[in-house]
């Protein structure tokens, strides 16, 4: 565990190596990426196992000295970190492997693997950070990595726009995080998590300040985790290669926001307002994104909105003081969403389109992908015995136990939506007759299917580490020795579980009726206003377009006017004055000694008078 800092270095090595020498390696560069990510995964596993038996390890050294203040850098392995390490490195390794098949033949594959390495490095570094500053550093690097990956197909205008949008939207959140972090620093005198918590506990920080900083930091989390209103970049980010979506938008980057709130959990619990904000934003995002997901036609966009919605769930859990629930869902979601994305990638790889209207009947063609996709869908819909069921249940209980009744019911509705749109997706892609020519559709190679199988297994079993039936192992372990994080398991009424099950089954049933059995017509949907509003994502993008963008542009144009007319005007004025003086001066130079004398004498006279009257300069 003392050497846990090596873990992020493997992918960094991969990045550096591939950037400099990748061009000569061509396809072989994939193996380097895979090997190194495997190494960090294995090492993470070792660290996790070691963590079961030994206490938290933390090591730091001075990074930057500002006067008397020393900012440190180092790493920390606590329960949450160790768990995240494994999740991130595992998904990263699987995505590396999967990409070998998916990106096969791309001439820039070495660049792709280099970017993957950079991203994984940043994410692992983020997970290991023992203080806010280091977190922020890797937080930004994660943003950079995702920016590069989203914009991987740089020659497409959409990719360019999406990358730019992702970067800027998350940057807006980052500024919130930066401000919150700096304010916290001047209050607590340190960026270290433990010292901040100690200061909070000791009451050294006023409660308004706690609320303010917590909310500012949450803004950062909102940016990265795609919470409303900073969510718009996430669906657009689907322009990147599909495995990237699995990595970024399922397991790692978007989870970073949740992770941040989780690791600063004691700060949030110190302020009821901050917690409430997190819960409300989370619940609203959950239902908001789910409603948009109902009508999307792009397979990846559906998954993207589902991600946003699930992240909202996690935020709701954390905001309801359900630390374990949030982290638990983060973990299960990482597995089943990665599975879904990879399976979707496999579908896209096979049919070369992302429009679900053009798919259908793929169940028979894709004998491996189909069932795997189904497992993922079942897991996310919260069907009992799959991992999503347990974690979602925990969240609902937490929300109920915390007394957020309204939010609880919102979450239940969101769960219904989730089940509905996920199965709508499943039925439209796999069931029924194919709607376009599907003769050349072939199953993906095993290098792609094997990672999916691994994830599918995890999507099923991951839930059993923390169940009300077989013990709450995960929860106990996570909160062990840290009472600030709450109880390992929150007891809730049993009917919640039943309601959740019924709701999700209902959603599935409805989807089946409409999209598979077609006993309910769906033509009327397309024409309604509601449909349009949903399909256009509540016109949020357009709203930003006309408000923020226009205002910014307006200010810029205004300032440009100031620049051209005012500043340049001053310049011209000065220049004019100088040349005018020159003209006046040249009039004196008429060659007549008398005029020279006159001018010189008047100058001297003025000087003498001034000196006599003022009695000298600067007296």
């Amino acid at each position: 565990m003392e050497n846990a800092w090596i873990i992020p270095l493997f992918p960094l090595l991969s990045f550096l190596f591939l950037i400099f020498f990748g061009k000569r390696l061509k396809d072989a560069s994939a193996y380097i990426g895979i090997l190194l990510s495997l190494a960090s995964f294995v090492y993470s596993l070792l660290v996790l196992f070691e963590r079961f038996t030994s206490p938290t390890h933390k090591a730091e050294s001075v990074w930057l000295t500002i006067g008397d203040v020393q900012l440190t850098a180092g790493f920390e392995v606590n329960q949450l970190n160790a768990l995240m390490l494994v999740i991130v490195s595992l998904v990263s390794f699987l995505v590396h492997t999967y990409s070998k098949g998916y990106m096969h033949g791309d001439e820039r594959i070495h660049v792709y693997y280099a970017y993957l390495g950079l991203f994984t490095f940043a994410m692992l570094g983020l997970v290991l950070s023992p203080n806010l500053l280091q977190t922020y550093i890797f937080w930004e690097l994660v943003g950079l990595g995702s920016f590069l990956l989203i914009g991987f197909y740089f020659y497409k205008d959409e990719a360019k726009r999406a990358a730019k949008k992702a970067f800027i939207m998350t940057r807006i959140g980052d500024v919130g995080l930066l401000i919150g972090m700096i304010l916290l620093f001047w209050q607590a005198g340190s960026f270290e998590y433990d010292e901040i918590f100690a200061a909070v506990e000791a009451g050294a920080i006023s409660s308004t300040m706690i609320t303010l900083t917590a909310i500012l930091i949450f803004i950062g989390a909102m940016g990265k985790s795609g919470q409303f209103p900073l969510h718009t970049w996430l669906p657009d980010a689907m322009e990147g290669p599909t495995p990237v979506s699995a990595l970024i938008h399922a397991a790692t980057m978007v989870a970073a926001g949740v992770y941040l709130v989780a690791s600063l959990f004691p700060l949030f619990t110190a302020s009821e307002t901050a917690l409430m904000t997190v819960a409300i934003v989370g619940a609203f995002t959950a239902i908001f994104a789910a409603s948009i997901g109902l009508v999307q036609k792009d397979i990846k966009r559906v998954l993207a909105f589902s991600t946003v919605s699930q992240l909202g769930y996690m935020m709701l859990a954390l905001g309801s003081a359900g630390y374990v629930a949030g982290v638990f869902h983060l973990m299960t979601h990482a597995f089943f969403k990665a599975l879904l994305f990879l399976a979707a990638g496999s579908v896209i790889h096979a049919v070369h389109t992302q429009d679900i209207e053009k798919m259908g009947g793929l169940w028979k063609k894709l004998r491996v992908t189909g069932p795997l996709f189904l497992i993922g869908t079942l897991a996310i819909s919260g069907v009992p015995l799959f991992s999503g069921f347990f974690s979602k249940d925990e969240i609902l209980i937490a929300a109920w136990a915390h007394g957020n009744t309204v939010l609880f019911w919102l979450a239940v509705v969101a769960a219904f939506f989730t089940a509905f749109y996920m199965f709508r997706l499943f039925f439209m892609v796999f069931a029924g007759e194919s709607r376009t020519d599907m003769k050349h559709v072939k199953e993906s190679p095993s290098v792609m299917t094997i990672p999916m199988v691994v994830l599918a297994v995890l999507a099923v079993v991951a839930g059993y580490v923390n169940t009300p039936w077989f013990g709450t192992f995960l929860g106990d372990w996570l909160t062990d020795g840290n009472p600030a994080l709450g109880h390992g398991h929150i007891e809730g009424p049993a009917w919640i579980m039943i309601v959740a099950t019924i709701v999700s089954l209902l959603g599935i049933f409805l989807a089946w009726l409409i999209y598979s059995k077609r006993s309910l017509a769906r033509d009327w949907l397309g024409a309604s206003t509601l449909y349009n509003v949903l399909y256009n994502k509540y016109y949020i993008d357009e709203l930003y377009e006309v408000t923020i963008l226009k205002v910014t542009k307006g200010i810029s144009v205004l300032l440009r006017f100031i620049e051209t007319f005012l500043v340049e005007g001053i310049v011209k004025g000065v220049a004019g004055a100088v040349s005018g003086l020159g003209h006046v001066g040249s009039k004196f130079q008429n060659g007549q000694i008398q005029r020279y004398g006159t001018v010189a004498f008047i100058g001297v006279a003025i000087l003498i008078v001034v000196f006599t009257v003022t009695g000298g300069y600067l007296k």
Partner: protein
Amino acid sequence: MNVAYLSILVFSPLLGILALLLVPKANESLIKIVGLLATLPALLMSLVVFFQYRTGASLASFTEEYKWFQFGDPSTLGDLFSIKYELGIDGFSLVMLVLTAILSTLAAIASIYIKKEWKGYFMLFLLLEIGMLGVFAAENLILFFIFFEITLIPTFFLIGKWGYFEKEKAAFSFLIYNGLGSAVLLIVIMVLFARTGTSNIEGLTAIIASDSQHLLLSAGAKMGLLVALLIAFGVKLPIFPLHSWMVRVHVQASPSVVMLHAGILLKIGAYGIIRFGMGIFPDQFQEIAVVIAVLGVVNLLYGAFLALVQIDFKMVLAYSSISHMGIVLIGLGALNEAGIQGAIFQVVSHGLIAALLFFLVGVFYERLQTSNIPNLGGMAKGMPITAGFLLAGAMASLGMPGMSGFVSEFMAFLGLFKEMPILAAVGALGIILTAVYLLRAVLGITYGKTQRDFAGITDIRRAEWIPALVLMGIIVLIGVYPSVLTEPLTSTLETIMLGIGG
């Protein structure tokens, strides 16, 4: 340390000028080689000092002092009213010296793009280097001023002769603005000299500090002098609204000259404000700290908003320089350790980043004859390495952690948030805007559909690798391991903080 080490360091490019006199005018390659070689001694010597300092050597032994000339009767006045030739360095000026030496060498490499009259070009170039090195090594205000002026004239010719279409206009506006700035500076220096009888920087600092009763200079006069200093160096920095010359110069001068201009010459302004404004008048500086911070935020936002609507990439970079210099002011306005250190970091960091970006502009302008963003789209296809460097440079510029820009930006804001949180929050908007305009510009150039035929256009070539890699390397080094800079700066910072009394 042997005598006259610093003098040799500062005047070593003179050797190159003399050598160039002997080289025939038409021998292009030889002139370029001599010009490049002439920058190397200063580089090596400054690096030697730097590493010696890092290993614990004292910088005091480098101080040189010779009698130069004197006003009045030496027997009665003693050392008063005598002007000495004094060179000396502390951590801050050492860092600036190293930066100057590095950028000069790299700019000499980047001078491959110069198309005509290489001999004159390199002679002026080396003269400029002497001036820049001297500015940072001078311990005496009058000597400082002389070196300051030495930088002015070569730059004027370098812009006016080897620039682009509107080079003359740019050169003249450069000269007028900076000439006015120098005039104001000269007045300040003369008043100080006349009142205190010394022009030694340390001596002045001590005298003004002991003059808390305002016997030598009234409080108002001190404030006036400080404001005059701010104007004089504000032109160089530049502070809004004294910036329009600098935009023109950035657009019109040739890349190698802009590398030095943006990298070093603008920094003289910051150096002057820190050294003289803050060093000599710490109490007055404290009084106007808020104004400085507000000016910084205005600079930051103003530059950023204007960079947002520019079409020419060079204009974007020019306004981004204004915006980044705002961060220097923000750091100074904070007036605490974090802020000042951030400001100094920003000085160094922006020097490197601006040099890198302008060098890259030179690289693709040479090949594509345009720097208009709409004409350039999709460069990553034709020139992937250049595009990669450009993207990396933009990331450094917008403050990506792991690169030097982040450290400085972070510390400057860290400082300001302690003193004026609300102003700092407004300034933090600039961080977003920086990302927006840089991405808009750089993605417009590198990403998207290819706008033109890249057939036959080579990517970055042999010699061009060196500046790009070296600059990138230093940027990352500072970003990852900032102690490389903080340690030399510690003593300087302590002195400044002592003066402020904080």
